[in-house]
């Protein structure tokens, strides 16, 4: 399912955070949204997820305009993974993953066979099947991140929006997480992630959107977007884009005066 | 002759002058006895309760009298030559007034009919109206003696049921009033709570021959009076003899107690006549 946004403006607590924003993401692709802190990455994702009403502009999800998506229908095709990995109660991992089935369930019904299958599939896909009885609050950061990603997968979304899913994870966990995301995209899902680590974006993402001060500065393939000029203009750094053993790496060298 | 008249007048004047002329009463019960014994001009102030029909048996007689709220400074305003107090709630004020050398007389609460007589005597002595006091007591005793006696005492039972389910047990003036009217006080037969309340259920399970309600159903705007409006109590009142006897009549040891005994005894006679 395609996401198309055009001329989107949005404000947060009265301040305009997104200014005339254009954005496209395609099924089967992993799209990264990058930009310095406060550039508007989270706001962009929240606007596309329908959590923040835009002041102006159009957002199309699939072949329908945003306004034509009832909240309940949208929840069955669009999964959103917030940046904070909050789980307020010590629920077991399996119950947390099961929360992803809420949009597919009528209010009174228990877990259907379909629900059970989706939960089991999501858990084994994220390799958390062994944690199912553990309270989420007792899991490590990486384990918790995988459980929460499994929760979105159990939702069986056609679009997955993840806000900095790799934040706070160690390098091995970060790599594993992006491999999971790549696989999810390969299954036909439209995956959009906000990323801080430019090398991860360069290595795993099919296309990159660079945001600065609420506007899109550049969009395209990693090589097109991660140029020294763009990085200097947005992050204020001198950076090199290398390919080492076939793996692209963005190396920040110094902070520009 | 003229001298004799003069002497008599002087004595009378001296006696009158010896009587307290600016009397303050700080207790609902002494208020009522006082009003019945002395001329209004000698009463400097009574409590606000004296004119409150919710608690006073003779509110109309207290209308127009000055009111004191009972704190020492307020009392001193009237420069009283006698302060009548009851046993409740004013001990700090009483101590202060005594230290200021005010003439303070404490009138104990009446726990029974003898107590009623004692209260009246105490007030009468303090205000210098002994003779009038004895006359009132004699009238009180005459009324009590005229009340018809039961064939056998304590065969007919009664219960005084109040707001919040409180009942009047032994040692209260209400109990003495019931017994003087020839009743057995049913309160002794229930397992009362420590607060002296009878559960409505006990009342329904073993009802007294006469149910005495101390106030009307609509009288109190309080959630506590819900027990008086309870359907079970209404049903009980339809099936048993009941009467509303204002608690003002037996709240204080005043001559009005005789009136309460008369009303109760009449109800007893009616019950005895019915069961015969």
């Amino acid at each position: 399912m395609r996401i198309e946004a055009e001329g989107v403006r949005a404000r947060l607590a009265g301040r305009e955070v997104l200014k005339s924003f254009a954005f496209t993401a395609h099924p089967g692709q992993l799209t990264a949204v990058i930009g310095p802190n406060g550039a508007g990455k989270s706001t962009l994702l929240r606007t596309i997820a329908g959590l923040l009403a835009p002041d102006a502009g159009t957002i199309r999800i699939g072949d329908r305009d945003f306004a034509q998506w009832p909240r309940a229908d949208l929840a069955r095709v669009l999964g959103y993974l917030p940046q904070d990995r909050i789980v307020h109660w010590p629920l077991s991992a399996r119950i947390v993953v099961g929360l992803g089935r809420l949009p597919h369930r009528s209010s009174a019904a228990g877990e259907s066979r379909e629900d059970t299958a989706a939960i089991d599939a999501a858990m084994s896909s994220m390799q958390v099947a062994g944690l199912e009885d553990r309270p989420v609050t007792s899991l490590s950061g990486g384990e918790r991140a995988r459980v929460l990603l499994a929760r979105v997968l159990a939702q069986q979304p056609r679009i997955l929006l993840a806000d900095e899913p790799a934040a706070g994870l160690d390098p091995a966990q970060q790599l594993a997480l992006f491999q999971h995301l790549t696989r999810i995209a390969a299954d036909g899902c439209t995956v959009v992630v906000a990323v801080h680590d430019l090398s991860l974006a360069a290595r795993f993402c099919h296309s990159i959107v660079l945001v600065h001060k609420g506007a899109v500065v550049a969009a395209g393939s990693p090589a097109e977007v991660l140029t020294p000029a763009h990085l200097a203009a947005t992050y204020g750094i001198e950076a090199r884009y290398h390919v080492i053993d076939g793996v692209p790496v963005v190396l920040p060298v110094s902070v520009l005066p | 002759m003229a001298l004799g008249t003069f002497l008599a007048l002087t004595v009378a004047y001296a006696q009158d002058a010896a009587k307290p002329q600016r009397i303050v009463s700080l207790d609902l019960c002494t208020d009522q006895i006082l009003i019945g014994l002395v001329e209004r001009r000698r009463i400097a102030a009574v409590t606000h309760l004296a004119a409150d029909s919710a608690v006073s048996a003779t509110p109309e007689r207290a209308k127009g009298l000055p009111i004191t709220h009972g704190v020492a400074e307020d009392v001193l305003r009237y420069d009283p030559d006698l302060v009548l107090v009851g046993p409740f709630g004013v001990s700090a004020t009483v101590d202060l007034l005594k230290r200021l050398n005010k003439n303070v007389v404490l009138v104990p609460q009446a726990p029974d009919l003898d107590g009623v007589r004692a209260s009246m005597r105490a007030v009468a002595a303090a205000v210098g109206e002994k003779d009038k006091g004895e006359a009132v007591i004699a009238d009180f005793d005459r009324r009590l003696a005229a009340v018809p006696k039961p064939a056998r005492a304590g065969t007919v039972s009664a219960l005084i049921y109040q707001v919040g389910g409180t009942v009047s047990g032994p040692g209260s003036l209400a109990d003495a009033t019931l017994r003087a009217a020839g009743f057995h006080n049913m309160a002794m037969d229930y397992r009362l709570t420590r607060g002296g309340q009878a559960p409505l259920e006990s009342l329904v399970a073993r009802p007294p021959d006469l149910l005495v309600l101390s106030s009307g159903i609509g009288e109190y705007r309080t959630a506590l009076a819900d027990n008086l409006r309870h359907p079970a109590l209404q049903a009980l009142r339809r099936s048993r003899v009941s009467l509303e006897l204002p608690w003002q009549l037996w709240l204080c040891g005043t001559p009005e107690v005789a009136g309460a005994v008369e009303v109760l005894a009449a109800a007893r006679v009616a019950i005895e006549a019915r069961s015969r």
Partner: protein
Amino acid sequence: MTAAGADTRMPPSMLLGVLAAVTAASFVLSLLVGPSGFGFGPAGEAGTLIFWEIRLPRAVLGALAGAALGLAGAALQGYLRNPLAEPGLIGVSGGAALGAVLAIHLGLSQAVALALPVGGLAGAAAAMLAVVSLAGMQGGAVTLILAGLAVSAICTALISLALNLSQNPFASVEMVFWLMGSLADRSLTQVWLAAPLILVGLALLLSVGRALDALTLGEDAARSLGVDLSRTRLAIVAGTTLAVGAATAVTGVIGFVGLLVPHVLRPLVGHRPGLLLPVSMLGGATFLLIADVGLRLAQPAVELRIGVLTALIGAPFFVWLVLRTRGELTP
């Protein structure tokens, strides 16, 4: 049931069934106990009167008030994601008591039969609004509890003021009635007044289970799962106001049930806030019914009001909760 059964120990349907049976048994037990002896009351007309007019209303109100308090506590804790929330603690009960006191003392309850529960509701709604606007819906635990304490204190002060000004000779005893609720000698009249409102409130509160489950993951995630947060907020505020407000208007304030019951039962449902709702409703009803039975058995040797008993059990529990929370907060 697959692995989910491992942490609930019992499938939800069985757990609810068992709890419903326990609640029903407590209800019957409550009908059997009274000062005139064990059983369904003495024979004859007096027995009929005792059963239908005295014991039945007491048992029904005990069950309904307990259900309202337990369920409202679970809903508030789930919505605020805070185990310290409770209708009494956040001022709803105090507001309801104040509303009822005003309805009685201004004489409204004599003019209009429904004035008492409606007054209770209005008071509860006003208190809830005051707390929410003081603390803000997103306010943290401490802000919320402080706001609740402030509003409760204001309500208590206004109740004593109202009783004082009314020159009611029973003001001090009635104050105790409102602050330490009681089920003693309540009548079917009061049941008919309060029950419909309590039932509507319970239904509203039971409807937010899915939303509370989703809210475990935070507000954004909940909305992305299709939860309408403003509808949820409305259902919880209105449901609590109706259920607890109506119950308090006829029983006075019964504290700590809403705090204690969800807390004790939460592990039984694997901490799931949605499933905790019906479980706490049944648990609250059972708790209050059993406490009331114990109270009647102990009387007159021990003279306690139901509100005092729940406070006696609840207050030390609250202290323990505070200590444990402190332990969690300090590393």
